[in-house]
């Protein structure tokens, strides 16, 4: 009996071209588009920023500073007379202005002057990039002044060697792949696609109920739990196929079209499969509960997808949670899609094992049981 129910469900889904497109094409397109669009967000240094220099100082220290800057950030663009307009319009991303008297001031430790090196950025420059450039400039000026000071004191200290031996180390903990747009977007939109089964399940269930087929199945002795399992299993399979396809797109397609490839290096496959199963169970259970709740085709096609879109917005799929204010971050921590996303990131980015995903898997499983229970009660009422 179960085999007949599963076959019927899969055939009905396969014949629904738009439903299949929504489940497979939509997340695939989101992965491709968002990974390419956000490529520079995760790799800001990959493409040097366009900048210019206005050096109003003729001293050697200023020239040394700007030489070093050009070595690290690429050569500056020649500035036109109305460079302020170009900067305001974003055609230049930033301009370094060295005030007259900077060199003299840098060489005189007792100087009370106010000559400065100014970093002027275009209005739309990413805040993180702006802060990075500012920090780099402070470091460069500080180093320059330290070199001048050491030379004046004549202590026999090699300033260049001192700069090379700064006791600071910055590195990522763990051996997982570095975060890239693909590494973030594949799990995000895979998760979104998996939860989007709500549209197909609701739509098919409403049709089944309205046409009397469900009544006929009941009259043939199909028990409610069998009907529920008959819907659960095919969509777990669909979720599995979605996961395989989205991971394949990340690994093989993205490098071909100019993106970074998804790295599964060091990934704990067991943890990944358990994580995907927990997400799938939560997604299909939510879909079944919503399918039992809606009463018409139009409700099925609006309520479910709207809830999924909201969950995606709140859960960090559309906007990373670290960019959200604290209140929204707290709210996100209650959204099942966020549990799934954090769990997947734990596996794919941080090489997390079973212990690392246990909290997410537990929460998703409890959510699935709650939804299944509610769905079962609603299902019996609908029969």
């Amino acid at each position: 009996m179960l085999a007949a129910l599963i076959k019927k469900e899969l055939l009905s889904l396969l014949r629904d071209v738009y439903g299949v497109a929504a489940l497979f094409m939509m997340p695939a397109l989101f992965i491709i588009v968002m990974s390419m669009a956000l490529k520079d967000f995760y790799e800001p240094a990959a493409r040097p920023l366009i900048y210019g220099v206005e050096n109003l100082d003729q001293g050697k220290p200023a020239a040394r500073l700007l030489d070093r800057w050009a070595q690290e950030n690429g050569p500056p663009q020649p500035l036109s007379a109305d460079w302020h307009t170009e900067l305001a319009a974003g055609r230049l991303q930033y301009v370094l202005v060295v005030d007259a008297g900077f060199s003299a001031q840098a060489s005189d430790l007792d100087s009370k002057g106010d000559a400065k090196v100014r970093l002027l950025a275009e209005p739309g420059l990413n805040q993180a990039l702006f802060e990075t450039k500012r920090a780099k400039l402070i470091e460069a000026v500080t180093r320059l002044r330290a070199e001048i000071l050491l030379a004046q004191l004549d202590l026999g200290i090699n300033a260049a060697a001192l700069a090379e031996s700064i006791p600071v180390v910055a590195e990522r903990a763990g051996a997982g792949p570095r975060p890239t747009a693909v590494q973030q977007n594949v799990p995000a939109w895979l998760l979104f696609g998996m939860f989007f089964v709500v549209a197909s399940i609701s739509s098919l269930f409403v049709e089944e109920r309205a046409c009397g087929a469900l009544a006929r199945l009941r009259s043939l002795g199909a028990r409610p739990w069998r009907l529920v399992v008959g819907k659960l299993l095919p969509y777990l399979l669909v979720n599995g196929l979605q996961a395989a396809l989205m991971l394949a797109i990340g690994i093989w397609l993205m490098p071909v079209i100019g993106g970074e490839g998804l790295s599964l290096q060091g990934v704990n496959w067991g943890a990944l499969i358990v994580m995907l199963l927990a997400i799938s169970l939560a997604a299909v259970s939510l879909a079944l509960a919503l399918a039992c709740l809606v009463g018409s085709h139009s409700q099925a096609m609006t309520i479910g997808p709207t809830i999924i879109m909201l969950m995606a917005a709140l859960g960090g799929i559309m906007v990373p949670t670290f960019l959200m204010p604290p209140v929204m971050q707290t709210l996100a921590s209650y959204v099942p899609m966020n549990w799934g996303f954090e769990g997947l990131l734990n596996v794919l980015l941080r090489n997390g094992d079973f212990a690392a995903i246990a909290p997410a898997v537990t929460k998703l499983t409890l959510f699935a049981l709650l939804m299944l229970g509610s769905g079962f009660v609603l299902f019996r009422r609908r029969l």
Partner: protein
Amino acid sequence: MLTIRQIAYRYPASTEAALTDVSFAATRGQVLGLLGPNGAGKTTLIALLAGLLRLQAGEITVDGLPLAATRARKPTRIALAPQEYAFYPSLTVTENLDCFAGVGGLFGSRRQQRIGECLAFVQIERHAHTRAARLSGGLKRRLNLAIALLHEPELLLLDEPTVGVDPQSRVFLLDAIRKLAQSGCAVIYTSHYMEEIEAIADYAVFLDEGRVVKQGPLAELLAEADAAGLRARPRHGNLEQLFMALTDHSLRG
């Protein structure tokens, strides 16, 4: 075969009973016409017999065994062909038959054999691989009946089986139902078309506002109508006159 004794049913959200003190019996080889205006309780009665609703009062037995026990042992002894096209429009005719055959517990070669026989019985073999959504109204009705026949039911519940079909399809369906009864199946047939009931029923039960207002062998009911002077108007049978006299002429909500 089927005995219904003093059954009653009230929907949870309703203050009025949908069925009250309904009793009648159906035997093998008989077509029992179940008549009544909208809201009379016909569909509720069919739903109770099909196991879609739980009996609240009274008793329904099949060959002396309570209906629930009969259904628990072999639910496919009773088959339902609902008023709606109760199949999957995106599946082909054969896929629909295969699905319902599988759910009802038919497997292997027996399943294929029954699918073939049912396709042949309602003469839709030519459309076996056509998606159900693309069938005409008459073919859909025939598929609806074919699915109900898959498990060779002993009691067949037909709820308005000819709604929306052309005269040819209607004649075909009525002939098919008559053949089923002749083969020993008990058929309960609800319809608004009095001429259909007159054409195929052996026994008629009139329901109104959830109660049986009249029942008996069709020949006796027609004779009674005749004796009461309920003469048929042109294009209207005596049964319709009796129906109108029993259920009054007012429109039902």
